């Protein structure tokens, strides 16, 4: 779910870049130097998943977006992480592009942060039981839905006639919501049983990082 190179007119691209810049700044503020390796290794895994993880879906396959999961683990740092991830995708595979980097970062990163505020606390409290799975499903679904809305909104700003594309994308994304939710649910259920500390999001203010 990204906006391709060249599609966004300058005002839309600029607005996207501006919002992304604010998000990235906050994300970097909450991250101390000593927490960079942690965030980066997470971003490596998340990027890799978007690249090679292929979930069977009908005759074809889909890859999970994982921004709900990323938000739960990274908090605000998810925004700079998605900036890096999306830049790499543009650089290596031409998913998205540099003129739409800002918009795409917002589309992916903002839902992640929202999921962090909505579900991180719940998962830390109730993660070990069924709560982990349910919280994960909720995060996966919420993130995907918000991402879709942001994406559709941005696309409509790029041109009203692009509504067709949004309409066409709606169907498959209903299926995707289900898969993303299940996948995130299973992943969160694993993590809260095996390594609950992963959901303790370090923030610049309280972080002592004495790893």
């Amino acid at each position, binding site marked *: 779910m990204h906006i391709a190179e060249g599609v966004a007119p300058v005002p839309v691209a600029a607005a996207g870049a501006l919002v992304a810049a604010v998000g990235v700044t906050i994300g970097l503020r909450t991250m101390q130097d000593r927490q960079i390796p942690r965030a980066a290794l997470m971003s490596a895994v998340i990027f890799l998943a978007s690249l090679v993880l292929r979930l069977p879906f009908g005759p074809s396959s889909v890859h999970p977006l994982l921004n709900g999961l990323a938000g739960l683990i990274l908090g605000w740092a998810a925004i700079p992480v998605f900036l890096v991830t999306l830049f790499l995708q543009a650089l290596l595979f031409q998913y998205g592009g540099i003129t739409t980097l800002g918009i795409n970062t917002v589309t992916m990163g903002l839902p992640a942060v929202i999921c962090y505020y909505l579900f991180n606390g719940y998962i830390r409290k109730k993660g070990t039981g069924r709560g982990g799975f349910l919280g994960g499903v909720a995060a996966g679904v919420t993130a995907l839905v918000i991402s879709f809305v942001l994406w559709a909104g941005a696309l409509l700003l790029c041109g009203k006639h692009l509504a067709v594309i949004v309409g066409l994308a709606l169907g498959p994304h209903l299926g995707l919501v289900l898969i993303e939710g299940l996948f995130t649910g299973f992943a969160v*259920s*694993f993590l809260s*049983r*095996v*390594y609950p500390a992963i959901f303790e999001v370090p923030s610049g203010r309280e972080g002592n990082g004495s790893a």
Partner: protein
Amino acid sequence: MGAGRVLLRFKNIGYGYEKDRPVLVEAGLELAAGERVGLTGPIGSGKTTLLHLAVGLLKPDRGTIEVFGRERRTERDFWEVRERMGLLFQDPEDQLFCPTVLEDLAFGPLNQGRSREETEIIVGETLEILGLQGFEKRITHHLSGGEKRLVSLASILTMKPDALLLDEPVIGLDPESRERIRSLLLTLPQAMIIVSHDREFLLSVTNHTLALRGGRVSPAAERAGGDRLSALPAREGK
């Protein structure tokens, strides 16, 4: 036990990860039912490669692979092979990926299409055989090194395989865990190929040892060397 029908036969296998650097050149090997074959060789000589070829995780550049009486070429050919031949990875960390022991042990049987009830019975039985009763709910990631090795072995045994391929099953283990695995292997009925660079261990659990060197398999070269140990093979099949 006696040499039964041939379960696995490699003929003139050639394989290289890179074009100009073949790891295996004309490698040949046979495993018959009831047999326990040890395989040694220096690091990088292709021991692990050979095991991965046997279950189709790698495809040979040359030569033929026959498993369970049929030649196997395509990915689809190997689906059946993988359901009947258990491969133990060298590093349990590469093999165990589920949160709990129960889930990891159930992974294979569920892939084979068994029902949940049946799977849980098999898991319980297997844990008992391995002396791991009550491990179902343990978090795999938190087990000790020796326990991980046992659980990864258990995760293969729950598939009730006809043959086992074991890659360095005792490397890095303390003497106690090592002895536990050794005596367990001696009680298992399956034919097996055991890769190890530990000659003493191999001699105590296998019928005969092969060596992989220069990309070829040659019989018993190692056995001639270790004179002190050559008295042991009589213990086989105990």
